[in-house]
C-alpha cells in the first residue's frame, strides 16, 4: 500500500519534472491574477495592504483550481487510471497519493511565491509568517476538496468551468479562514483561532476526502 502510494507520488512528480511548463503556467497565473487587482482597483498603498490577504488567497484558489482539471484527465485519457482502479492498493490510498502529488506540484510552490506577491502589496513583513502558514494549511484542503470535483467531472464537456462551479462554493470556508487569519494578525489580534480551524479542516478533509474521491472515480469511470 505504501509502495503503491510512493510509486504514484514519484511518478507524478517525475511527469511534472519532464513537463515543467504545466507547473509553470499555473504559477504564472497566480502571479498574473494577483497583479491584475491593483490595475483594477488602483494602487493606493493603504487599500492594497488591506486587500492583500484576500487577493492572494483568491489568486491561490483560482490557480489551484486551474491545475485540478488535469489531475485525473491525463490518466483517464491514456488508460492508466483504469490500472490504478484495478491496482492492489485501495482506491482511497491511490486518490490520496494523487492529491499529495498535486499539492506538491501546484500548492506548495504557491506558498513559496506568496511572499513575493505580499511584497507587491506592501504587506507588513510581520504578517508573512501567518500568510505562509495559512496557505500551507489551506492549499492541501483546496487540493483535497477540488479533487472530488475533478473526479466527478471526469470526461465531461465544459469540464473546467463546471468544475469551478462545483468546487468554489465548497472553498468558501477555507478562503474565509485563510484570509481571515491574516486579517486578524493585521489587526493585531491572534490568528490562532483561524489557523486552528484551518488545521481542523485539513484533518477532516484528509480523513474523508480520499474516500469521496475514490467513490467519485468509480462513478465516473463506470
Amino acid at each position, binding site marked *: 500500500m505504501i509502495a503503491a502510494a510512493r510509486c504514484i507520488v514519484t511518478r507524478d512528480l517525475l511527469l511534472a519534472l519532464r513537463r515543467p511548463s504545466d507547473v509553470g503556467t499555473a504559477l504564472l497565473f497566480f502571479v498574473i491574477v494577483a497583479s491584475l487587482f491593483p490595475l483594477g482597483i488602483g494602487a493606493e498603498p493603504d487599500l492594497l495592504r488591506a486587500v492583500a490577504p484576500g487577493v492572494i488567497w483568491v489568486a491561490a484558489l483560482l490557480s489551484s483550481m486551474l491545475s485540478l482539471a488535469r489531475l485525473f484527465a491525463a490518466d483517464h485519457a491514456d488508460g492508466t487510471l483504469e490500472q490504478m482502479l484495478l491496482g492492489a492498493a485501495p482506491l482511497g490510498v491511490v486518490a490520496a497519493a494523487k492529491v499529495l502529488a498535486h499539492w506538491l506540484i501546484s500548492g506548495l510552490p504557491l506558498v513559496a511565491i506568496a511572499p513575493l506577491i505580499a511584497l507587491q502589496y506592501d504587506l507588513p513583513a510581520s504578517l508573512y509568517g501567518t500568510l505562509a502558514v495559512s496557505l500551507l494549511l489551506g492549499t492541501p484542503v483546496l487540493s483535497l476538496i477540488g479533487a472530488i470535483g475533478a473526479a466527478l467531472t471526469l470526461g465531461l464537456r465544459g469540464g473546467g468551468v463546471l468544475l469551478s462551479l462545483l468546487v468554489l462554493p465548497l472553498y468558501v470556508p477555507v478562503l474565509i479562514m485563510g484570509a481571515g487569519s491574516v486579517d486578524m494578525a493585521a489587526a493585531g489580534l491572534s490568528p490562532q483561532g483561524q489557523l486552528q480551524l484551518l488545521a481542523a479542516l485539513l484533518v477532516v478533509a484528509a480523513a474523508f476526502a480520499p474516500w469521496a474521491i475514490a467513490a467519485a472515480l468509480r462513478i465516473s469511470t*463506470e
Partner: protein
Amino acid sequence: MLEASNLDCLRGGRTLFRGLSFSLRGGELLRIAGANGSGKTSLLKILCGLLTPDAGEVRWQDTPIRQLREDYSRELVYLGHAPAVKDDLTAAENLAVACTLAGRTASPQQAGEALESYGLAADGVAVRRLSQGQRRRAALARLLLSADAPLWLLDEPFAALDAAAARFTEELIAGHVAQGGAAIYTTHQEANIGAAVLRVVKLG
C-alpha cells in the same frame, strides 16, 4: 474459478447482451468474439470489475467480485484497449510503475529482460517517441512479469502488432494457460493460440 451468471449490459440505451452466463476454470482459454460495438470491451470490463453489470454477477472462487475488491484485482492482469503507458516516461519506467501498482515487485533487471523479449530496448527513450506497435509491446511486456496472476484479461492484445510479436504473444498466452492459468481475450482477428480448451463466447 471465474463464473459469470446472468449478466445484462445496457450502454447508451442499447442492450448489448442479456442473461449471459459462462464459467472458466484454470487451464482454459476464453475468446470473446463479436463485431464492433457488440460489447466485447464492456464484457471484459464487467469481468474485471471496472464496470457494474445492470443485472447478474461475476464470482471468483465462489465469492462475488464486488465483495473481493482488491483481493480480486491482485489475482488478475487487465490490459485494455489503450496501452496504459505515460507518454513522458520510458518503457522501463512505465513497466516498473505498472508492476508496483499491481502489487508485484520487479527488479530493473527483470523489467529489462521483459522488454527485450518484446524487442524493446530498456533505454531512456520516452514512450511518445515509440510507434503504436512498440507501445503495445511495452504494455504487453507486463505479462512476462505477471506469471503469478491466475487470470489474464486482454482486450485486443494483437492490435497493432506485427506477425512476430503477435506470434510471441500467442505463445505467451498459451504457455500461461498450459501452466494452469486462465485467459480471456477479445479480438477481431483470427488468432491461433494452441490451448487445450478453447471456448468462444460470441456477442451480438
